[in-house]
């Protein structure tokens, strides 16, 4: 039992550089701009809204704001169709092996979505 407790404690320590859906700690400072085609439209389910775009040969996981906040920027599910060309700006994952970006801004045609205006 103490082994389990120790394992949990060690696991908690390892997990301290917290990112995933909690904060910006695992992202680069620099803002990256990407232009690609939507392969999976905006999903408003889960702790953060998400979408996937294809840039060159790579599929990027775009992490947006929590759903209610993403909705306030004007985003809705189905609004940006699969296959549409979008330009996005955000902070990519420190681990460049992961094509993941916390997304600040999305532009599709004449529509702009300021997901995190305070970070622009």
């Amino acid at each position, binding site marked *: *039992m*103490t082994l*389990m*407790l120790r*394992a*949990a*404690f060690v*696991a*908690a320590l390892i*997990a301290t550089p*917290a*990112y*995933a*859906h*909690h904060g910006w700690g695992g992202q680069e400072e620099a803002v990256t701009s990407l232009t690609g085609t939507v392969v999976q439209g905006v*999903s*408003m*389910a*889960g*702790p953060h809204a*998400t979408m996937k775009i294809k840039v060159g040969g790579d599929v990027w996981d775009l992490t947006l704001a*929590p*759903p*209610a906040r*993403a*909705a306030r920027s004007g985003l809705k599910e189905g609004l940006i169709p699969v296959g549409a060309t979008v330009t996005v700006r955000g902070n990519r994952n420190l681990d460049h092996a992961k094509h993941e970006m916390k997304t600040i801004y999305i532009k599709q045609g004449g529509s702009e979505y300021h997901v995190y205006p305070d970070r622009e």
Partner: protein
Amino acid sequence: MSVAQFLTWLEHSPLGAFTRSLGVWSYGVINLVHILGIILLFGSILILDLRMLGAWRQIPLALLSRPTTRLAQIGLVVALCSGIPMITVKSTDYIGNPFLLIKFPAIALALLNVLLVHRTEAWRAHRVRDLMPSERNRLKIGAALSLTFWLTAITAGRMIGYW
């Protein structure tokens, strides 16, 4: 069926589709209910376990055991009823997440421990008579295991989102 296959199946289940369709506040609200369930579950268990470990000896165990056990049961049901839909929303995100593989075995061990404690003579007898030292020690072991397993489950559960 591997864990990855199970999580993929779970995400594509009708419950997953239904939970995802509930609107922009749904995840936050389900998450809130899950936390309330855990508060009820662990808060009650903490009081009972600390009593069995020797705290507040002036309060008879028999007085505490019934309400804390009942509240913990309610908390468990609330946590299950919110946790299951929550995990179906984007189950495939959890593939390869080691905390998931700590959390659920820890819950299984915690529930097994409840079962074993409730089957002891010490547990049955505590409502009708004073316990012998050996019986009190049996309950202490159960209480220590209980706190260890539940704290492990809660820690691993919280860390899932940070992986």
